[in-house]
């Protein structure tokens, strides 16, 4: 089961729940799963079918370069983190 970490700003939607276990093969399934459990959370994370532009998904510490299509491993950690562009 993958572990999904809920950002503190979205915990009002989860009743304070910080982590959720989830069987999912990719980020899209993770978000659909979350939205079934906590209606409305998808809108906070996704816009026009993609992760919102100021957010990124990190799977096991790596920012998901394929966004919603990124694979999620059986024991992966999934985080929604600030999108950090090229520090330039």
């Amino acid at each position, binding site marked *: 089961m993958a572990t999904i*970490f809920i*950002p*503190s*700003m*979205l915990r009002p939607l989860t009743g304070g729940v910080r982590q959720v276990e989830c069987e999912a093969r990719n980020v899209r399934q993770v978000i659909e799963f979350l939205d079934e459990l906590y209606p409305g959370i998808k*809108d*906070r*994370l996704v*816009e*026009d079918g993609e992760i*919102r*532009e*100021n*957010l990124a998904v*990190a799977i096991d*510490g*790596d*920012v998901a*370069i394929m966004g919603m299509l990124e694979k999620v491993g059986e024991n992966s*950690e999934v*985080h929604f*983190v*600030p*999108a*950090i*562009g*090229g*520090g*330039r």
Partner: protein
Amino acid sequence: MTSNQVLSDVEYNVVGKRPVRPDGVDKVTGRAQYGADTQLTGTLWAKVLRSPHPHARIKSINTSKAEALTGVRAVLTAKDLPFASLSKEALGGEYASLKFASDHMLASDKVLFKGHPVAAVAAVNGHVAESALALIEVEYEVLESVIDVREAMKDGAVLVHEDLRTNDMGEMSSKPSNIATHMSYSLGDIAKGFAEADLVLEREYTTATVHQGYIEPHNSTSFWNSDGQVNIWTSTQGSFQVRATTANVLRLPVSKVKVTPMEIGGGFGGKITAYLDAITALLSKKTGHPVKAAMSRTEVFEASGPAPASWMRVKIGVKNNGKMTAVETEMAMDAGAYPGSPVMQAIVCAFACYDVENGKVDGYDVVVNKPKTAAYRAPGSPQAAFAVESLIDEICLQLKLDPIEFRLLNAAKEGTRRIEGLVARRIGLIECLEAARDHDHYKSKTNGGNTGRGVACGYWPNRGFQSSVVMTVNFDGTIGLLMGSVDIGGTRASIAQQTAETLGIAYEDVKPTVVDTDSIGYTFITGGSRTSFATGIAAINAAEDVMAQMVSRAAKIWDTEEDNVEYVNGMISHKSDEELKFSFKDLARQLATTGGTISGRSNVDPTGEGNGYAVHVVDVVVDPETGKTDVTRYTAVQDAGKAVHPSYVEGQMQGGAVQGIGWALNEEYFFDQTGKMMNPTFLDYRMPTTLDLPMIDTVIVEVANPGHPYGVRGVGEAAIVPPMAAIANAVSRATGNRMHSLPMTPGKILEAGWENGK
């Protein structure tokens, strides 16, 4: 005499050596072609009319007199830009909306900062163009402006954008606000963490707007051909970024825009945004001529992208033994006229040097009537480090703890979970702290009196992102290496070194060339400390592609299976017949008659970039009469993973320290009350010169990054994170007065002393 050490336990043949840079001769002889050197037949000069007001509504623009002036070929206003709607459209990650991008280039309804472009003229020469600017009549309705980040956050503040709403992680505020984005993360139980502390300190800090200070001003030359093809020659850190921005703003397919990146005279993050390219392109379309524009220094200061001013509140709880129990910060950064300050980077970086179980970070991206801020090395992290590392030094003084031992006790390491949730992989902070502790500098005694020694840590995550490389095997065994990454800090050399190392050939046999956007696959900007890492991986993969094809060709010549052939250290050999072997050059000579040349290619988007850490130690002496600070000794320690070219790594470390000294002690935009910059020249914007600086000693620590074949980590940014805090800590220890605001000018230092009666 400078002391430069490399603490390395892995040696390679080419990686880690210090060969001559491929672009060195051209640069030292003045033959290198920079953007302003571009000279096409029939080129016109463009000048930009800029707003004298920080905030005003444009009521009308009359260009008829300018158009009638002899020698003027075209005048441009925002009406000439394709309609830019408010719908979201990504522009290389730089802007929130197409309208913002378009308006930033040429204001349509309002001007939002002094220097905001309003119109542009193309004329036969610069003098005529400038005369024409004076003939353009703009009627403004001057509006009240807001320039302070905290003032801009208040309810009832003047609104920079009447329709901007706060994005609270996907939830938009009901009322318009200057706060574009708020983001918050937490870890553990912060209340419990502070309750367990023996000492809790909380302070506020501010930093001023500063500029990257690159020597070469922004410039652009464009030619819009009659077939609709647009060619742009420009100074940029990202040719594909310029292509994307120009194509999007002008509503063109990207295939219609070719961008040739010229040599770049410094960028540090400030040469990512495309300010002039769409303007010169449209003027070229109107006139049928090539059009060139170059900013003056004043335009660079007033209308390019400085680093943001900031306000930060930091609270830290510790046990008496120095163990941190809880940390908390609120950070607000001014984005300038359009959203996009680096405050989210700041909150991610703020406590990344520490292993602490309980923490909370909040970041606010705030628009004000100042030029839109841009990246400046490790954007956001230096301001955050100034605040956090200053408070840690204050804690160390109160608890009488050695500042390096305190940091070692709390240092982040492999397995540390950061506040945003990610877990650190193999990182080298502890090794950097140990190297600083064991350095002659730290072991030496300070002279007492008005001297002080400061220490600070810094973090930058480093980035990956997309890179493309193509390499061709010439028939004499040399390699043509094509890359899309602009070379700012010596990456032609570092990519060529990784290529040569992988192929097992001499560095001198690899000729690297930075090419235009039509000649290579998409390559992200040179920035984020990514190029030696990501483009390096692309080069390694492309070299492996070449190796596989060389093996295949040898198998063909020897009439055997590829499995019977091996490639080791530049030699291609038959595994079971010692007589059959080729050097790389020998086999290259046979390519023409055995099937033709070989090219390797690679397009990558790698993860595993490996975080960067730095520790700086600095000694200062402060004149109690004048408040002037002199930096007397400086040592920079940094984990490079593996320094591909140690001289360039040392250059990055020394450059970061020097820029940090300026940021700490002198540099700032002075604004009048309405937001007009009062010091837009290098005479009045005081950057350090050699007379202000000591030699900068360096220690390169090499803790291999497992995400790169040679262990490489980015090095371009972590070096600018610790200096301001390290110097502030040194000044505070020298004077006995804690400094909470940058820059620490003589006046501020004297005032702090007067306030404290010292």
